[in-house]
């Protein structure tokens, strides 16, 4: 059923009895043309574009829990395309473009809200680094504005301009950046894929691969074996574990990133603000909760929960820019598993195993990539060649040295 104000009105008058499941609870078939492992945003978007753009509909998405149970369901929802390096920027901008038409495309309100992303800078040196990034964005035809302190103050007057340890000097603003309702993105893609025939199979964990003569032919799951011509991995924090089932060892570590939400309050902050002298970002959800986060916990973990020093650090950083938060209460904290890559940038590529494709390395920033990641991964799987904007996101770049290291932090995932 198409969602619209009319369908909503119609159902309202008949007790909402006519709504049907947003996606079928599909049972696994014995064989698919393409199996996508991982029912997060990326996996579901891949299936959606495989069906919609490439007409490949004999597709299954296998999810070990409920769809969106991974990072897609627990991120701070920031979307932006304010990257520095040519390997990244066109890709994220393509994502931004897809966000801009997404809801009409998949007929689901994902609350894509282009409320602006403001990165604060706190020194002249940082200003110049942000200028470099802003200029790089403009070279890619992406909007970027460098604000001075007064302009920042006009936008977000309640920050600490007078008594801060790291005074605010200005900010880099991308007005087209913003947020989206993370769960709705998952559900919208799921519904869109399902409508086009894709089987979404939940509670189905992949436990092994069938590989013959260097080519993948199927996989084992907790719900039986499934044959597949092509298999795409989009399992984020579980990438190393799943890839190891196919004998791959990757430039990836899994780290916990925490996020937090405050009690709901009346609108207090209209855009996304990030702190440049630390690692902190904050925005307000449409429900009123302040959604915020900071750095990863910084050590390998599969525990889906965070540790205390990071909590303190994040909340101190929040107070450092916004002293009025003192009496606001943090309501809930949680953690996700980041697939931290060795240069902080993602990988969308083939693997040494024929027919097995890899989508990983999203670090703490893959939510914004969801549409483009799905688009490009679908293209790669369907055509066996990279989509242009993702051409640099290769697996062999660590060996060749063609790294995409936005932070210049080197081969240490927890520094990215």
């Amino acid at each position, binding site marked *: 059923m198409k*969602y*619209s104000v009319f369908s*909503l*009105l119609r159902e*309202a008058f008949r007790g909402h*009895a006519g709504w*049907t*499941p947003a*996606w079928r609870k599909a049972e696994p078939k014995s064989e698919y043309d393409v199996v996508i492992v991982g029912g997060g945003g990326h996996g579901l978007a891949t299936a959606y574009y495989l069906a919609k753009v490439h007409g490949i509909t004999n597709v299954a998405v296998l999810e070990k829990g409920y769809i*969106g*149970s991974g990072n897609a*369901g627990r991120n701070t929802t920031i979307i932006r395309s304010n990257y520095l390096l040519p390997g990244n920027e066109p890709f994220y901008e393509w994502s931004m473009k897809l966000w801009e038409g997404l*809801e009409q495309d998949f*007929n689901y*309100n994902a*609350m894509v*809200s*282009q409320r602006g992303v403001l990165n604060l800078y706190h020194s002249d*040196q940082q200003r*110049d680094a942000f*200028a*470099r*990034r802003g*200029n*790089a964005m403009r070279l*890619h035809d992406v909007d*970027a504005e460098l604000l001075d302190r007064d302009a920042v103050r006009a936008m977000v007057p309640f920050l600490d301009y007078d008594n801060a*340890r*790291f005074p605010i000097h200005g900010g880099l603003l991308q007005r087209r950046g913003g947020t989206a309702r993370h769960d709705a993105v998952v559900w919208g893609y799921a519904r869109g894929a399902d409508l086009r025939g894709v089987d979404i199979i939940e509670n189905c964990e992949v436990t092994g691969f069938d590989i013959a003569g260097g080519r993948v032919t199927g996989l084992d799951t907790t719900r039986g074996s499934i044959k597949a011509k092509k298999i795409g991995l989009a399992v984020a924090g579980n990438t190393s574990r799943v890839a190891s089932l196919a004998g791959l060892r990757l430039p990836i570590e899994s780290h916990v990133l925490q996020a937090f939400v405050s009690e*709901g*309050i*009346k*609108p207090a902050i209209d855009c996304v603000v990030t702190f440049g002298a630390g690692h902190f970002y904050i925005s307000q959800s*449409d429900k*009123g909760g302040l959604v915020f986060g900071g750095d990863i916990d910084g050590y390998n973990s599969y525990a889906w*929960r965070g*540790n205390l020093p990071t909590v*303190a650090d994040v*909340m*101190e*950083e929040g*107070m*450092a820019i916004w*002293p*009025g938060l*003192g*009496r*606001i*209460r*943090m*309501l*809930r*904290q*949680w953690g996700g598993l980041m697939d931290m890559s060795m240069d902080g940038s993602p990988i969308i590529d083939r693997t040494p195993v024929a027919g097995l494709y890899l989508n990983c390395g999203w670090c703490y920033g893959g939510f914004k990539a969801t549409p483009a990641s799905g688009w490009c991964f679908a293209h790669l799987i369907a055509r066996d060649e990279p989509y242009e904007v993702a051409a640099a996101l290769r697996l062999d*770049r660590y060996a060749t*040295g063609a790294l995409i*290291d936005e*932070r210049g*932090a*080197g081969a240490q995932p927890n520094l990215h």
Partner: protein
Amino acid sequence: MNAPHRLAQGGLIDRARPLSFVFDGQAYAGCAGDTLASALMANGVKLVGRSFKYHRPRGILTAGSDEPNALVELRTGPRREPNTRVTTVELYDGLVAASQNRWPSLAFDIGAVNDWLSRFLVAGFYYKTFMCPAKFWEMLYEPLIRRAAGLGRAAGAGDPDHYEKAFAHCDVLVIGGGPAGLMAALAAGRAGARVILADEDFRLGGRLLAERYEIDGKPGTEWVAEIEAELASLPDVRIMPRTTVTSVFDHGQYGAVERVNDHLPVPPEHEPRQRGWKIVAKRAVLAAGALERSIAFGNNDRPGVMLAGAVRAYANRYAAAPGRRVAVFTNNDDGWRTAADAHAAGIEVAAVIDSRAEPPAQFAALGIEVLTGAQVSHVHGGQGVRGIDVVDARGRLTKIDCDVLAVSGGWNPAVHLTCHLGGKPVWSDNLAAFTPGATPPGMHVAGAANGALTLAECLHAGVAAGAMAAVECGFPIASFMMPSAEDEASGVTALWHVEESRAKAFVDFQNDVTVEDIALANREGFSSVEHLKRYTTLGMATDQGKAANVTGLAILADVSGRAIAEVGTTTYRPPYVPVSFGAMTGHHRSRDFRPVRLAPSHQWAEEQGAVFVEAGAWLRAQYYPRDGEKDWLETVNREVTATRASVGVCDVSTLGKIEIEGADAAIFLDRVYTNTFSSLPVGKSRYGLMLREDGFVMDDGTTSRLAPERFVMTTTTAQAGRVMQHLEFCHQVLWPELDVQMVSVSEQWAQFSIAGPRSRAVLRKLVDERYDLSDKAFPHLAAKEVAVGSVTARLFRLSFSGEMAYELAVPARYGDAAIRAIMAAGEEFSMIPYGTEALGTMRIEKGHVAGNEINGQLTARDLGLGRMMSSRKDYVGRVMAQRPALLEPDRPVLVGFRPADRKARLRAGAHFIPLGATVTAANDEGHMTSVAFSPMLGHWIGLGVLKRGPQRIGERVRAYDPVRNGDVEVEICSPVFFDPEGARLYG
């Protein structure tokens, strides 16, 4: 003022200490010992808040931190605290609170139209609409939704109170001071363990405060006082009231918040408002009790519908009558106590409605009307209960008049803290509740939190858990006289939802999630309990669904035809109750956010009127303006000119300094630097370049050989810590077999760069005349220990500015004296101090790289330093630096730039585009890394990396800088702008 609903006697309030307070502009009276909730109740105030979505009128549901409804804005101005539960606010004199999420007033709230529109505003309606046209979202729909949503208003200004954080350590942490917790603390304390007993209430006792239980034949509260006195007498027991243990972290760490002064209008001088505790405990006993839950039936959210246990708490503890005529609706034995206690307190009991066929025998004597096998299907009344409809087993409907309905749907053990490390609660059919599953390592659970629902059981369980915890910490079992108490009836038969309800039946009160919403979510496929939560927002409100979650998932189980155990729970996450930013921040706010490092000359520089700049953790003098100088540029120009003309001094103490000793020190340096240090003679310094193992430049600096087996290395200010760590890594992890020792001496030495043609003359006046400072005796790159007065100093002939220059290091306590002495010695040469700006200008004039170039993205070759990469030895980063992409001839390489129009200004961060080329990323050829105005050349100069830069000297490109409208045409040149032959170095 008199409080009309205050019971004539009883309660734990202090009637001799009246307090006045204001709610929504109206003044009321309460007593010490009241909460804001009990005081409102004593005053007959029923309507306290509005719900989140439908703006339904709401009253007080609970008597604790599980309250979903009665949220207010407490205090005013910069101390305003939105969403404060009236049930946890200790009343103080002069308290001011206001209702929230309503307009224009609490009684008449326009937002309540949502309730009329609720037919449309079902769970998830917003996902299905507001999509067209796309741009209306930000313009129209979203602002409307946002304004309607949200609860209270944040304070606009910074929080004026201060906060602290603190650490505590113990053998046994007891969480909760009810009967189980008190016993646990006592058992562990008597055994000799170090015990912390934390309770979020301002008074110990837990449910005993709310009940009329007796222990050892004494009233419960009296017994509590005795136990508390004994605990207080034990030397290693610490009692922490007003302290909520909010979170469990790995390895026995507990987060807790102490509300030190929230019971006062403002904290006393020097005292914090709240304190965030990190408690490290070898063992913990969770004795957090159980939380009562409601039952879903029509209009079960009306003000006056309360949890049965809360009604007892108000009557017994606070002597506040929730109403005149109370009806009780229960599915368990405990609910009956409310009838008995209300009756005893002189409140009329209209009826007890028990959904079970067989009521407990012991209450038969009360002489109250009893309806068994019956259920409440509807509540009459808008802003307060006026009556209820009861359906009995045969479907007959009875209307009962009452102004309070006490509901008990059973008790949920407070398992929350057992789940913070991933434990999953397990369903008990017997208790009709979830009980703790695997607990965090070291945690025992006792009392109602563990599903023990009788007092005697709780007391026993407390002793057992406390003793066990102490034993596990190595203490003996202490002998114990077990207190005696009744084993009260606690039978329950689950009832979640009254089918016959006509009106909306609420499950999550604050977020307005109804039984219908759950059914709809299930119909739409959101049948995983997590999807249910996210689709309907069940359990996501400020109470985190303490009362709602179990009911919600039970209803989901019902509508989806599954067992409750199969449906499972959502994840209980920290914190147990919401925690303020203040408490988690403590002292670390404003300028104390992070420590600041000050150079030894800081105070002197302040006296000179220096402007300071952040450099990592340091504050460094950026420039020293003089009267009459119109801007920083004029100042910096003067500093550079004066230095190059005569002499200037700059504090460089912030550089990292590491002493490296040992027989293998030279070998070690050869392995960490790209170039060779084993060949460095004693008494000499050398510039060194360090790579990361991935082949990119990590840091640079100079290292001097003080003795055959003794070196001192300098690092950049920014990387000092990282380099130290790296060197320790190289030694301890890679090459532990080397005889090398290293220690940071960064703090020990104050170091000054004295630069300019007259630098030697200045030094001559400072350094003991025994030391020959002539160019021959002390040439460029010489290093030596010298005497300055009675002080042993280190003198290095190093130059970052291109001038003849020295770095003089003195023990830091003499840093202040040294800068004054240097300036005095330089006076006759018109010496000036210069800051980081001039330092930067001079290094750019000389083409030296610094932080802007050593940004982790560039290789030694990119920086034009390829020749420093020795080919005769191994060093960290050598192999990976040979990767093909790093050898690409097209990589941007360091060169210099000057504006084609010499009057134009350059800006770092501009990108280089070939002249006339279209402005696209494909034509991006590099970027400007550093710029300065060169007073020597009279125009701006810049360093930058450009594709094949060194081959293109003389060519022009465009420095593209749209974010600052700073587009300029620049000419590519050598990065060495000034004194390219380096003649000035030699003086």
